[in-house]
């Protein structure tokens, strides 16, 4: 009789996460059109906001002379928000079509199923970010330096994970693609009620108050630092801390909903 070799649980879990990420990649490769809205939306926002609000840099308080440099990290983060929300919509579709039910009866732990969705969104968010960044450079945005660029992309990938946790939480809670506007609006509000459009001092009072307590303000500032000035650890760690906090809270909410499925 041939002896079976037990695969260590961590390897099995890793393989499952990898398989779910490959599935997400296949969706992208087989239906490339599905990626277009995620790429197009932040690009339109970038070009539109730049064309419309570009003159704002004439106001005292802007640390850069070009609005492209100021707004490009926001558009890259917006792309991450859209991509993460799309992951939630895809999960809702999987629930509606019964695909998630089949995953739930597999021996894979629930956190692994969630991790596959979240990490796939994180990787996918690099596509719109790269596209928007390339367009911004072509239009005259400043080069943020390799360290600045690396920090921006880390922020983008982590923000997509945050958005995917939010989208997954809502998908698992409502079990319907009808929750899509809530997924997108939630992320839009979170990213734009910051110093997205102008420095803190130039925001209206109520938005200034919200931006001060919104943790994503630190993420925007960390992602922006290379574009408008120099990169420092003091400008980076608050963003990383904010993302860790958001991931912990929204990840816990999504995981709780995932664990409730089928019970």
């Amino acid at each position, binding site marked *: 009789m041939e002896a079976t070799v037990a695969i260590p649980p961590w390897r099995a879990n890793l393989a499952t996460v990898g398989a779910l990420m490959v599935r997400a990649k296949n969706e992208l490769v087989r239906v490339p059109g599905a990626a277009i809205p995620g790429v197009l939306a932040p690009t339109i926002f970038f070009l539109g906001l730049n064309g419309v609000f570009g003159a704002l840099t004439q106001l005292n308080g802007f640390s850069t002379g070009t609005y492209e440099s100021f707004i490009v990290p926001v558009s890259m983060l917006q792309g991450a928000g859209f991509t993460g929300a799309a992951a939630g919509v895809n999960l809702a579709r999987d629930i509606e079509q019964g695909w998630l039910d089949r995953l739930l009866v597999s021996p894979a732990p629930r956190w692994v199923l969630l991790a596959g969705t979240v990490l796939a969104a994180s990787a996918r968010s690099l596509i719109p970010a790269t596209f928007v960044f390339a367009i911004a450079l072509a239009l005259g945005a400043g080069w943020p330096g390799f360290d600045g660029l690396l920090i921006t992309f880390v922020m983008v990938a982590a923000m997509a994970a945050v958005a995917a946790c939010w989208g997954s939480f809502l998908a698992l809670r409502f079990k319907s693609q*009808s929750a899509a506007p809530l997924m997108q609006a939630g992320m839009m509000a979170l990213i734009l009620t910051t110093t997205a459009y102008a420095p803190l001092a130039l925001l209206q009072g109520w938005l200034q108050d919200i931006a001060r307590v919104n943790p994503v303000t630190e993420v925007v500032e960390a992602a922006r630092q290379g574009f408008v000035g120099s990169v420092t650890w003091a400008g980076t760690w608050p963003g990383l801390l904010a993302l860790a906090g958001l991931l912990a809270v929204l990840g816990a909410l999504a995981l709780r909903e995932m664990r409730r499925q089928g019970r």
Partner: protein
Amino acid sequence: MSSLVRNARVVRALGMRSIRQTFRRPQLIAPIIVFPTLLLAIQTGGAAAAVELPGFPPVQSFLQFMLAGAMMQSLMLAGNSGGIALAVDIEMGFTDRLFSAPIPRFAIVLGRLAGTAALGLFGALWFLAIGLIFGATIESGVPGALLAIVLVTAAAMAVGGIGAAIALRTGSASVVQGLFPLVLVVLFLSSAFFPQELMIEPAKTIAEYNPLSLVVEGIREPMISGIDAADTLYAVLAILGIVALGLVLSARALRHRLRVG
């Protein structure tokens, strides 16, 4: 019962169905109300200092200036949502059943447009209420507010005609939904969100020739200064132009739909 009254009843019934459908589906109402409101709040709060820029028209506040832009965004997306809903009806066979009913074909499209116009009216009232609640004044008073409401409602119907034409031509909800980014592009390339003189090239030049700029200025003027006959006339002409385009495209698309089934 005269045929006119009978047709009016069909249009009303289909229009009411279209409104109910929109309010029952969050994915249809969100683009019309939620997103424009969110953007209005964020842009008003984020770019409020823009009124201090040299060359910015004299306004009471940036919110007062932005109200017309929010209404424009809402009505454009109402037109797009109307197109999506019509395409869903085609995909699910509901339109085929209407085609086989003893009602004129134009009443089917007009019913959908009546619903879109009603949503435009709702959007206009919503944003006027938001503006007034948050301290914006309507400089030309009640007549100005009424003029803005009429222009927004008419523009929603006009834009809805183009959405309906695309839905009838393609019969695919995903194709009409794919136009959503295009709506944003057209809006950004108009003076909906910023004075055209202060925009950056090439957006500035495109906005100058974009008919939506004429519509938005017609809606904005009564709010920020007073009713201006020339601005109103240009807005009406621009809306009529969009109506004509929508009618031609819809008629062609309807013929195509009846031919291909």
